[in-house]
């Protein structure tokens, strides 16, 4: 099968077959990223534009590296430093970029739904690299890839997603995808950090971390987005850390061999203890490495969509 869609906007709308195709395609690129010459000519002559309205070194670099390893021409565009301050709208910016013959636009935007709006207005393929609190599909796909790489079957897998679920687009994409693949997803955090309808997305809600961790095979920690919360959702960072921080003691409640994930960047000593972040069960750096392979797979599949 092939990915017969112009854009990759969310995991809520992706079928299980499409998700599996992306993961399998990423396998081939993982092999490429392990070579001495980490470059293939698959996207030669194509132009990929990284349009990042929000700063993000990690995701942008990962996409940039992925596109370059596929031999595409890459343009990094940060509107915050240019035309947007002069009053240009998202669509005007995108149309200008499209006029430069961009084949794929990778969009990061602070507004939920921005990627979909853009996709409807341009002919280029649009990949959502995070839109507001909505979704971050490529991060969730690399999380799925990392889980699969550890040979954990999705069906019946018990996953705890810990922290600020409300503000986390990564969590939302993961809940959609993991429940679709047959996993049991538990979300845990203070009530102020769990969105009201999260149980309707198929996740089980916990307020006690110890309870939620019992018997899980995957612990997915979320970053405490101190810059995004505006108002305090808990009294102090210290209290949050005491109640919801992942310590080595708490990891022992999970199933033996459970993996610890984090989308990064980590707040050491806040949501995750340093000895856990650096432990053998941590796959945080695998996630970063797999991110490039998964994004190569996505760019490759999307490049055939036009």
């Amino acid at each position, binding site marked *: 099968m092939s*990915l*017969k869609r112009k854009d990759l906007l969310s995991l809520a709308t992706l079928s299980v077959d499409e998700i599996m*195709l992306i993961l399998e*395609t990423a396998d*081939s690129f993982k092999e490429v990223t392990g070579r001495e010459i980490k470059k293939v000519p698959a996207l030669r002559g194509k132009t990929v534009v990284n349009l990042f309205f929000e700063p993000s070194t990690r995701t942008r670099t990962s996409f940039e590296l992925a596109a370059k390893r596929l031999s595409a021409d890459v343009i990094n565009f940060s509107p915050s430093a240019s035309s947007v301050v002069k009053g240009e709208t998202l669509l005007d910016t995108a149309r200008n970029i499209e006029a430069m013959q961009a084949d794929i636009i990778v969009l990061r935007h602070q507004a939920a739904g921005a990627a979909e709006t853009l996709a409807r207005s341009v002919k280029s393929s649009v990949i959502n690299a995070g839109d507001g609190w909505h979704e971050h599909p490529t991060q969730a796909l690399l999380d799925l890839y990392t889980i699969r790489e550890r040979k954990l079957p999705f069906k019946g897998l018990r996953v705890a997603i810990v922290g600020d679920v409300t503000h986390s687009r990564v969590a939302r994409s993961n809940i959609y995808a993991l429940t679709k693949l047959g996993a049991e997803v538990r979300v845990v955090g203070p009530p102020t950090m769990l969105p009201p309808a999260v149980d309707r997305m198929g996740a089980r809600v916990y307020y006690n971390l110890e309870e939620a961790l019992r018997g899980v095979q995957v612990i997915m920690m979320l970053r405490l987005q101190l810059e995004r919360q505006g108002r305090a959702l808990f009294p102090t960072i210290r209290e949050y850390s005491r109640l919801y921080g992942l310590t080595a003691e708490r990891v022992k409640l999970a199933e033996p061999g459970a993996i610890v994930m984090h989308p990064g960047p980590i707040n050491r000593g806040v949501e995750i203890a340093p000895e856990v972040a650096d432990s053998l069960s941590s796959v945080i750096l695998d996630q970063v490495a797999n991110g490039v392979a998964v994004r190569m797979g996505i760019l*490759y599949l999307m*490049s*055939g969509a036009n």
Partner: protein
Amino acid sequence: MPGNRMTTGARTDKPQERPVMDAGDIARALTRIAHEILERNKGTKELALVGIRTGGVHLAHRLARRILDIEGAQVPIGELDITLYRDDLALRKDQPVLRKTSVPFNISDLKIVLVDDVLFTGRTTRAAMDGLIDLGRPAEIQLAVLVDRGHRQLPIKANYIGKNIPTSRDEIVKVLLEEEGEEDRVVILKA
């Protein structure tokens, strides 16, 4: 169609099949190629086989078994997927499904025999050579094919050929192999 001996009882809308090699022919051709490879390379020193997915991989494994029987030496085998090196990727509507490349040895300074089932325009071989060179710098690349059907679009020539089969451009040469759940044979399909 009158005069075609293969279509007894077949539906007329099915492509017509003409057999050109049976299991015995394929086995004999591979044995001969194995001998030719050993003769040309004076044994198996610094020799490796790399099959082009999918048919070429099966044939590379068969050739390696024959070389083991004849010479008593195991040659390394790699599997190459050339999809990412195709020159028509940008032109295609759907992206072809990728399979994994697996060449678990350093190809630098080795004599590599690329193995494919059918040699046609030469574009697959060109892609395979590009793919190989991205993995290292082989001392030499040779090409072994079960069938050479002509119609080259690039200046490429095989070193070892199982059978030359003259075809017209609109015909399809199909190599069916046991490894894919078929009976070993080569047929020409005419649309």
